[in-house]
């Protein structure tokens, strides 16, 4: 279990846990398979071979339309949302050193949702994704400022976060009691989290965000490992503790905001993906958390689309229904 792989070339040397690397690779294979399956399965079934052909630019017009304009953006949105939430959750749990923390618990997702829901119910303005992003970032900034006392302690951050989350959730409930039922229903579907009708408009901001932030976070992940030893040890090992925390939390808030703005409040993924990743790899791995999140959201959406067509079950419902029993199983096994 503690086998390690070291890769050295010139001045460059990298090191992984063998188990971590294997699990992460498997997760990424599963993720790609999920992507292809998401594109292949649907009312108009496309053989996987044709999917791959289309993706490399050798498909006919009909499959091009279905694959490139309809299913691929949706599947990519799901993949990216899952990955973003997985990483964001891992950061919150590691930085606060609290296994119950996640962007949902500390109110980031709720802040975004409050802004979005208020916009849906009270106005005609069509800028829900933007409102969600702005709301998430506001909640994140508020959280950090309120939790700051000559530094940010994990414990205080979680407590303040619970306050922020409760406030935002009460706001959401209030908005829902004030609106007309038609708007409330729209808002509710959004709250639950759905990938229905997602297009390239959702993919691009997410892709850019994930593409920039995840490498930054991976570069910081050695600091995360050292931060896990406590502030004093981390400082004496030369880690700028407060700056690292700010960077990491900032990245996590941005990722959450982007995910919420693309797919609504897909709950539970940010909480559970890092836990599953940690138990599979038996170490902390941001990439594995990203992979778990992506696989979870992709498979939830796939099941939601195919269970009882043409009705679609929103992805946010199925993420919990799939992952909760699995996680409980892991909990039980950990005890044995």
């Amino acid at each position: 279990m503690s086998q390690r792989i070291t890769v050295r070339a010139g001045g460059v040397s990298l090191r992984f846990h063998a188990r971590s690397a294997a699990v992460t690779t498997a997760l990424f294979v599963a993720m790609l398979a999920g992507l292809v399956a998401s594109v292949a399965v649907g009312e108009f079934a496309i053989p996987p071979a044709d999917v791959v052909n289309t993706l490399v630019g050798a498909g006919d017009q009909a499959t091009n339309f279905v694959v490139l304009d309809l299913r691929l953006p949706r599947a990519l949105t799901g993949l990216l949302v899952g990955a973003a939430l997985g990483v964001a959750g891992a950061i919150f749990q590691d930085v606060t050193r609290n296994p119950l923390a996640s962007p949902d618990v500390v109110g980031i997702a709720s802040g975004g949702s409050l802004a979005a829901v208020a916009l849906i119910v009270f106005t005609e303005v069509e800028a829900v994704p933007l409102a969600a992003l702005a709301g998430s970032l506001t909640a994140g900034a508020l959280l950090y400022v309120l939790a700051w006392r000559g530094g940010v302690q994990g414990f205080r951050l979680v407590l303040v976060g619970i306050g922020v989350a409760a406030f935002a959730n009460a706001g959401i409930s209030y908005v829902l009691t004030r609106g007309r039922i038609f708007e409330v229903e729209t808002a509710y579907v959004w709250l639950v989290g759905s990938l229905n009708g997602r297009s390239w408009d959702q993919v691009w901001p997410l892709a850019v965000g994930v593409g920039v932030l995840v490498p930054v976070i991976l570069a910081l992940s050695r600091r995360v490992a050292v931060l896990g030893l406590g502030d004093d040890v981390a400082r004496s090992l030369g880690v700028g503790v407060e700056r690292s925390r700010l960077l990491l939390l900032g990245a996590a808030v941005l990722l959450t905001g982007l995910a919420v703005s693309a797919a609504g409040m897909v709950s539970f993924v940010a909480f559970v993906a890092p836990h599953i990743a940690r138990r599979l790899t038996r170490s902390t791995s941001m990439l594995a958390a990203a992979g778990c999140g992506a696989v979870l959201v992709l498979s939830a959406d796939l099941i939601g689309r195919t269970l009882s067509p043409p009705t679609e079950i929103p992805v946010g419902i199925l993420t919990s229904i799939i992952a909760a029993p699995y996680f409980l199983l892991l909990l039980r096994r950990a005890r044995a």
Partner: protein
Amino acid sequence: MLAFSVLASLAIGSKSVPFAEVIRAFTAYDGSDAHAIVRDLRVPRTEVGLLVGAALGAAGALMQGATRNALAEPGILGINAGASFAVVLAISVLNVGSTPAYTGFALAGAAIVAIAVFALGATTRKGPAGVTLALAGSVMAALLIALTSAVLVFDARTLDEFRFWIVGSIGGRDGSVALTVLPVIAAGLVIAFAAGHSLNTLALGDEVARSLGQHVGRTRAAVSLGFVLLAGGAVAAAGPVAFVGLAVPHVARILAGPDYRWIVPYSVLLGAVLLLAADVVGRVLVRPAEMGVGIVTVLVGAPFFVWLVRRPKLVAL
């Protein structure tokens, strides 16, 4: 303070009744509108408020003591989620349509979920039992919330009813609601008051508690039972009222010090006062409409809670 909030709760509303008139409604009932409002509407509502507030305060104190986790609160074991799911099923499948009628369903849902969570989480032999229990609880809650959502997304009529229940409110409750939950909450309160001493020992850590001759597992089980009765009774009567159970024990701890024999009664009183006060504020704030007490408790409680945890000396457990 409690007496004052009770009086305010009876007097203030979309139709205000002078305090003197309130008292006369009991001493010399004359059948006027004002007297009828006080005795038939406001009294049951106030009773429910008292019970729910006291129950939430005590439940939070018990759970924070038993798990030694400052974040433990009535929602944590999935009890609110279980009650919510039961209510949604009642509305959607059984066409139950009145607020008082939800009470029984909510109670049953809360009880079933609590049992399930304990079966999953409490068999732990090693390690911090609190964390496993909390993890199992939050996962169970997530699962139930998802199932609830699954019903609501496809059933607009149920959503229309449910959105008013979920905010937590003690409006529109008649005498039967208080009567249904009274035995449950009373039993829970008895356990809570009896547990103070054990919680003090438990606060020193499992090992010290054990060496002081305490049956740690049995204490936790008893405390958990009390907690389920209190939290279940509260959610059944008023829907999920957030924050009272979380914030009140912290305030009690500041006022009463670290002794659970005092924290529990303080939490009971403070919970009742806070809930009634919040309910009154909710009636006044957007008059003639009302704001659910669950929303008001958070609007008032959350900023206060943030102030609390920003204090330089965070009260550790």
